[in-house]
Every structure is written in structure tokens, then in C-alpha cells.
């Protein structure tokens, strides 16, 4: 549609139309669809169609020019201020703020008042008024980029400031400029039309769409077509420019491209093709054949590919793996907390006290979450609500499960904060998360998980973001609490040292599957799977001095193109032809299971 409008506007001089300014008093105010004037004529008998085409041309040209002008000047100010920072930035932005202290159109009016009415002056006014918008946006984007490490890297490669702006910052800010422009062109066309409508823009006989509308308005009742027609045109142009702007934004914004702006549902979508039979083992948590996929466009990433494990009451199971091994996805799947879209659970069962959480209704699942089973997450700053106090967040968790008077709930919350050894718990309950240190926040996270006395806690890398000395304290606290309360703990981590300190049993994951599981001491001392053995060998150990580490060559496979057979085979020095085909089962040998055809310690 926009293309059609643009085409007509560009071709205006070549089209067989009457002259737009040709007056013919005899043909005044002809209605639309009359002879010789499809859209009728105005009060001076000028052909409306012809005036419309020429007016469109003028409006578009003025709008786009104003947008370009504002974008160039505004972006230049924004980039320079953002890159220089400090006092120059401060001064420039205060100036911009000052311009923004005026209501938008009023400033344009004031400028026109000084320069006098006229289309060119209206153009300047609209451009000036829009400069602050660009300057602010582009400065924000520039500051974000100027603090990225590659800008420092460019400085160290000897580039000058000007060159860094040109080759490092500008290309990365460009999408923001284009987005800002495409979303404001529509506005600028509207505003210039508005000024003309008020008689402050284009002056007769020259006419853009706005002044046509302004002239038409005087005859609103006798000849409505004279104002309806140009109005429709402005609307059509602005609407198509806005649609185009949305399209441009969607194409340039990487977050939108990946579909990440989709709203995650209350629980992970479950589309199981096969639900395992019940075979009660009496364990608190039984996970069987759990398969969680991420469906992104045509690609399917198998993040968890048939995971089975059990956790007895009071037991601590560590799930360890590198990034992309599916350990966190497995943990989040237990209570349906994987974001969906794109996550889908396609197979398996998760039984908590014998009830399958994957087949629960929303309300049933809500009762389990934070009741029987609670979660602790990695980054406590991002996982606590920034605008609610710690105490309110805990009270809310209590009251979501038990109708408790607010006061009583509050007292319970404070006593739990004391339990996790927060000094001055009453004051902590009144604090907001950002007022606490990382270690304190994670203690709050633990207290929050404890509010309804759960049987099971799922902890997803709870100490990864903490310093080692704080980590040691938090681990000691978790260990003590779970022993004291008989809590079962599923502890996700990438750190063998942490597993060794905390967990009774450990499951090692690689490419979405458990490759080895057994008692922690046993697995760490006598790993059977080649991956486990070599991963342990990679870890630098304190107290062993300077040495070369036995690195594993290569990279884990991509989750959307997993190989047949053992996923570790391409990196394994023990791999044979049989490893590269067919399903390899997790074979049990006493309490120690391993998914390998040629495990360590066996004859090859």
C-alpha cells in the first residue's frame, strides 16, 4: 500500500492530471465521481484528485526530510554525548532535557511563531522538536555499546576515538537509529500536516494534505468530501508508514526475531506421546524418561532427552554438567517452569509422592509449587521481585498456600530469615532485594523456599553467582538445613567441588542425558564413563601446584543435531564403531550406573 502511495507521489508530474492549482470557479464543489473530477473539486473548482496526488508528494517529502534532519542531528548529539561521557555528556543532555520540558507541539508552534508561517519553517520546527527524542535514544544505545569490551579492545588495537565511533559504535547503533526513524516518520508527517491544517505550514496556493484538510474544514457541512478525502490519504500514509516501521523494528530487533518476546505460559506445555507406566518405588521423586524440547521455528533442540532418576526423602542428588547439558532444563521441567514457548515436554513422567506433576491441572500444580516442592534459583537479584520487600514476598508465598493472617505470616517469615542466619531479620524483611548483598539475597532465596516446609527443594546453581567465601557459607547452611528438616534436595551445578561437599549421590549429564550416576564418593573416585573421568581431570585442583591439565578436545554436539549412539563418541578416545549407532542404555552395576559400552576399568 505504501509502495502504491509512494509510486503515485513520485510519478505525479508524469500522470495525466489537471494542474492542481488551476482554478475554475464554474466547477466549484463538485461531488465525487462527477465527470472530469473523480474525487470532485474544491471551493475554487480545483481538481481534488490532482491536488491530492501533489499534496501527498509534498507531505511525504516534508515528513521524510524532517525525519532525516532530526535523525542526523539527534543521532550525532547522542553518539558524541554517549561516547564522551562525563561533563560533555552532562551538558548536552541537560540541553536536550530542556527542549523536552516543552510540550512537543507547543515548541513547534513557538518556532513557527518566530520564523513565520511557511512549509519550510514548519519542517524545521518539526525536525527541531524531534531532535531530543533521537538524541536521548541514541545516547542510551551508545552508552550501552561504549561500555562493551570490544570498544576497549579497539582502543588497545590503537584506533583513534573518531575511528572507534565510525567503525565500532556507529554500525552497532545503526539499527537503533533506523528503528527510531521508521517509528517516527509517521509522526512527523502527521505533525507537519497538523501545522498546515492550522494554516501555519504550507501557504496557498501550494497545498499539502494538511492545508487541504484545513481548507476543507471550512466547508465541512456543505461539502464533506473536501475534508474527508485528504484525511483518508493522511491516515493511509501514516498507517502504512507505521506498519512498515513495526516491520523494520521486528526485523532489526534480535530479541523479536528469536520469538523471545512471547509470553511464557503459566506452566510448560506438555505434549506427551508416551507416558511411562507407574511402577512405584517409594521414592519421594521419580523422574522417568523426561524429554524436554525447545521448538524454535523448524528447529528442535532436545535439551533433555530421556532423563530418569529418583530422589529418596532426605536425600541430596547433585546433577552436574557443562552448559548445554540439559541440567537446568531438567530441574525446571520437574515443576513445569521451563518457558513455553519455546519449551515443550514431549515424553516422560515426574512423580512427586506418587503423583505425576506433568498431568496436573493448573490449580493442582500451583498447590505443589512452593508447597511440597520449592525452588532456589541462580541469580537472586533477578529472581526476587524488585519492587516488593523481602517480607512481602515471603508473606505472599505463605498465603498462596495457607490462609494465614498477615501478621502471623509476617512473624513466620522473620523467624525463617533468622533461621538462615540473617543478622537483624526484621529489618531485612522490610528491605528491598537491591538493598542486600549477593550472599544475603541468596539466603533470602533459601528462606523463601522454606516457607511452606517443603519435602523437596530444587536448587538451580544457587551458588554460582557468589564469591567462594560466601559460597562456602551458603553451602554449609543448605547442608545443615536439609539434615535438620529431612529435606530432599536436587542440586544443579557445574562444579565437582560443590557436589563433593554437599551431595549424597551425583548424576552426570552430557548432551541432554544422564551418562553416569552413583554415590558421590564412588563416582568421583572411580568414574566409569570416559566423559566423567576426563571432565574431572580437567578441573584444576587447589594444592596441586602448577601443571598442565588434561583437556578434552572438541566441543559438545549441537542439541538440534545430536549424533546417533553415544553423544560423547566424537570426543572420546575409547570410542569404537559400536558407540556411533543405536541406543546405548544406562546400565546398572549395583548403585553405580553408566551409559557406556566400554566403561573405564573394563577390558576394551
Amino acid at each position, binding site marked *: 500500500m505504501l509502495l502504491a502511495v509512494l509510486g503515485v507521489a513520485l510519478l505525479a508530474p508524469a500522470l495525466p492530471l489537471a494542474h492542481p492549482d488551476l482554478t475554475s470557479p464554474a466547477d466549484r464543489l463538485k461531488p465525487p465521481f462527477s465527470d472530469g473530477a473523480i474525487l470532485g473539486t474544491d471551493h475554487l473548482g480545483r481538481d481534488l484528485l490532482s491536488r491530492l496526488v501533489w499534496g501527498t508528494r509534498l507531505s511525504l517529502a516534508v515528513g521524510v526530510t524532517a525525519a532525516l534532519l532530526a535523525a542526523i542531528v539527534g543521532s550525532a548529539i547522542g553518539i558524541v554525548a554517549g561516547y564522551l561521557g562525563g561533563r560533555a555528556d552532562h551538558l548536552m543532555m541537560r540541553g536536550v532535557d530542556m527542549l523536552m520540558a516543552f510540550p512537543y507541539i507547543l515548541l513547534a508552534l513557538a518556532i513557527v511563531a518566530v520564523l513565520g508561517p511557511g512549509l519550510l519553517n514548519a519542517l524545521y520546527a518539526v525536525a527541531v522538536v524531534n531532535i531530543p527524542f533521537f538524541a536521548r535514544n541514541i545516547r542510551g544505545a551508545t552508552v550501552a555499546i561504549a561500555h562493551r569490551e570490544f570498544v576497549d579492545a579497539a582502543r588497545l588495537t590503537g584506533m583513534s576515538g573518531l575511528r572507534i565511533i565510525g567503525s565500532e559504535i556507529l554500525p552497532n547503533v545503526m539499527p537503533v537509529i533506523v528503528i527510531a526513524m521508521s517509528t517516527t516518520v509517521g509522526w512527523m508527517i502527521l505533525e507537519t500536516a497538523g501545522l498546515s491544517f492550522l494554516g501555519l505550514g504550507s501557504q496557498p496556493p501550494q497545498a499539502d494534505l494538511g492545508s487541504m484538510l484545513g481548507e476543507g474544514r471550512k466547508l465541512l457541512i456543505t461539502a464533506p468530501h473536501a475534508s474527508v478525502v485528504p484525511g483518508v490519504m493522511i491516515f493511509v500514509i501514516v498507517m502504512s508508514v507505521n506498519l512498515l516501521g513495526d516491520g523494520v523494528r521486528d526485523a532489526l530487533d534480535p530479541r523479536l526475531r528469536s520469538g523471545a518476546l512471547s509470553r511464557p505460559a503459566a506452566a510448560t506445555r506438555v505434549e506427551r506421546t508416551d507416558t511411562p507406566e507407574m511402577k512405584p518405588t517409594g521414592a519421594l521423586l521419580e523422574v522417568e524418561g523426561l524429554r524436554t524440547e525447545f521448538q524454535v521455528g523448524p528447529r528442535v533442540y532436545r535439551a533433555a532427552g530421556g532423563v530418569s532418576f529418583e530422589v529418596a526423602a532426605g536425600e541430596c542428588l547433585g546433577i552436574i554438567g557443562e552448559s548445554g547439558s540439559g541440567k537446568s532444563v531438567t530441574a525446571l521441567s520437574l515443576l513445569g517452569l521451563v518457558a513455553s514457548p519455546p519449551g515443550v515436554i514431549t515424553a516422560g513422567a515426574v512423580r512427586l509422592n506418587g503423583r505425576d506433576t506433568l498431568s496436573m491441572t493448573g490449580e493442582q500444580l500451583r498447590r505443589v509449587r512452593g508447597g511440597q516442592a520449592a525452588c532456589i534459583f541462580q541469580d537472586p537479584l533477578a529472581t526476587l521481585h524488585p519492587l516488593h520487600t523481602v517480607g512481602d514476598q515471603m508473606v505472599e508465598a505463605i498465603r498462596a498456600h495457607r490462609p494465614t493472617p498477615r501478621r502471623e505470616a509476617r512473624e513466620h517469615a522473620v523467624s525463617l530469615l533468622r533461621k538462615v542466619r540473617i543478622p537483624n531479620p526484621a529489618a531485612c524483611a522490610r528491605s528491598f532485594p537491591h538493598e542486600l548483598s549477593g550472599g544475603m539475597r541468596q*539466603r533470602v532465596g533459601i528462606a523463601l523456599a522454606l516457607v511452606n516446609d517443603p519435602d523437596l527443594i530444587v536448587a538451580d546453581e544457587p551458588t554460582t553467582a557468589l564469591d*567462594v567465601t560466601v559460597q562456602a557459607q551458603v553451602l554449609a547452611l543448605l547442608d545443615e538445613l536439609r539434615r535438620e528438616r529431612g529435606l530432599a534436595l536436587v542440586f544443579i551445578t557445574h562444579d565437582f567441588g560443590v557436589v563433593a561437599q554437599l551431595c549424597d549421590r551425583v548424576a552426570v549429564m552430557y548432551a541432554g542425558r544422564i551418562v553416569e550416576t552413583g554415590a558421590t564418593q564412588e563416582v568421583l573416585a572411580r568414574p566409569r564413563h570416559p566423559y566423567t573421568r576426563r571432565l574431572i581431570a580437567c578441573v584444576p*585442583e587447589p594444592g596441586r601446584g602448577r601443571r598442565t591439565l588434561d583437556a578434552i578436545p572438541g566441543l559438545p554436539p549441537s542439541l538440534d543435531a545430536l549424533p546417533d549412539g553415544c553423544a560423547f563418541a566424537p570426543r572420546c578416545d575409547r570410542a569404537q564403531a559400536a558407540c556411533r549407532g543405536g541406543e546405548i542404555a544406562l546400565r546398572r552395576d549395583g548403585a553405580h550406573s553408566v551409559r557406556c559400552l566400554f566403561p573405564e576399568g573394563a577390558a576394551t
Partner: protein
Amino acid sequence: MADVTAALIARDLGKTFGGGRTLLGRRKPSVSAVRGVTFSVAPGETLGIVGESGCGKSTLARMLVGLLPPTVGTIEIEGRDLSDYTGHPAAVGRLVQYVFQDPISSLNPRKSIRQILEAPLIHLLGMEPAGRKARIAELLDAVHLRHEFLDRYPHELSGGQAQRIGIARALAAAPRILILDEPVSALDVSVQAQVLNLLADLRRAYDLTYLFISHDLAVVEAVSDRIAVFYFGRIVEMGPAEEVFGVPRHPYTKLLEWSTPAIRRPRRRTAPENCTDHESAKFSGEAAAAELPDPLCPPPGCAFAARCARAEDDCRAVMPTVTLLPSNHEVACHHPLD
């Protein structure tokens, strides 16, 4: 210690952020990120710097390559003061280079790997196209990457591959010293081991001097000849690697060592052996105030005193000075462990 031929010397280095006055003449709050840091690194040596978040180790690193001007103190590189090079950033760039923590964000997403590697060759060395081509091929071989990576863009690389490119870029201008700022903390253990081994190989092959910064004591220990332990902007202990971690003298070093989880040292719920019950309680999580002092109003004495089981009145009142122990082992503590 004050070796004439040292590759890198920092003397009484300090950096204060903020401060100054507002337009109305009021004093702005200031934060000292690094205070009174003195050390030297011999050619071919690896000095490991270990410390927790907020201890000032990254600020130090950025000062050493000239990304931040120091507030006080001097930096000498191969006998010349860094301030002599003011206005000649390329000259510094040919001597010292920097490897960043986050491998992906240290590469411009809109440039191909070839453009990224060419930049230092053009701007630091002023090389001709033919020479650049040969040098880039050489660099890729050195970091064990296939040549087809040249026309790819950073987002197509894995973390380990991106960090190899970061290292190749740092090596491009054949510097003498590499500042490695947490070069492996963003990587998985298996990839981390690959990169650490690569760094060790490169050091031997090009006769480089390393300053290796990390929060991970085990990693620092695996790569360093000497180690400096940072706490709240100061070096609290420095010495040969096996000494510092074998027989730590500063209580903070001891705490760090004790807190680092280790596979072969499982299930320790008691504190280090030479602690009293009271100290043991402090170590094992009772010391909930295990936090850094407020940087806006630092304590007059030892910054660690509030967490230290051995702290006495003098620790809280007087800043401990550096004591030199046998075998070049330094410690800043009034009551060091023995």
C-alpha cells in the same frame, strides 16, 4: 625484588573513582578501587592475581594497559614509565596487550574475524596487505583454529573459539606482556582446560610475560609462578605460588583456600585445623557479615579485620604494612599465621 630488568613494575599504584567537586563546589563521594599496590613481574614470569568480586583486580588490569589512568603511582614497562607514552597509544599496544573476560562481548558483532584480527596489524604495526595475510595465518595456527573461521562473525563461534580469537588479537602485534583478565571464567571446565593449556604453550613459544587475574584460586595456582592475593583494593599477601597456598600467612588467604570447593577433599564441615573453636564457627558460616567494608567509608585499619578471627585492637585502628618474610614472601598483616 626491584629488578632493573623487570618486565612490569607497579609502584604504589592507586585509583580513585568519583571525587572532585560538583558544579556547586560540593565534594562528591569517592571510592578507592585500588590502593598502594606495588609489585614487579620478571620477564617470562606468570604473576597470578586472585581476589573476589570488588577487590579491584580488574581496575588494576585496566590501568596496566592504559585503559584507565592511575590516580597515583607509576607503572613501568621494560624500564620505561607508562606516562612517557602519553599520546602514543600504539607504542603501549606493541608492548602490552589485554585478554578480556567475556570472549563474545569483546568481539565486535558486526565485524568478521578477519577484520578483527587485521585491526591491530593496521593500527599498531602499519602492515601491508600481503604481510597481514601471512601474519593472520600464523596467528590462527598459533591458537589452533582452522582458517575457515576468518570469514565468520563472532556470534557463529563458541565461547572457547571466541576466546582463542581474543588471544590471537592480543598476540597480533607481538607484545611482550599479556594481561589476562579472568580469561577462562566464562568458559566450561573442559574448554577452560583447553584455553589454559593453549596459554601455557604460547608463553613458552613466544617467551611472554603474563599477569593472570582470576577469582578462582585453583586456576591461578595451576598457571602461576608467583601469586598476589587481593582484598579490598590492596595486596594482602604475595609470594611464590607453592608458598602462598602451601603455607598461607594471611588469614584471608587461608579463608579463600579453605572455602574453595575441591573434589578430593570432600565433606569438610569443620574449619582449618589451626583454628580455635571460635574461629571455626566464624569460618563455617556464622560470620554472616562476610562482606566487604563500605567502599565509601573504608575502615582505618585492616579491611579484613571485621571478618578475621585473629583480629585485635591494632588491626582495627592501624593499617598493616607489608612485611617481607623469607623466600620473597610478603604479607600485610599485624598477626600473620605461622
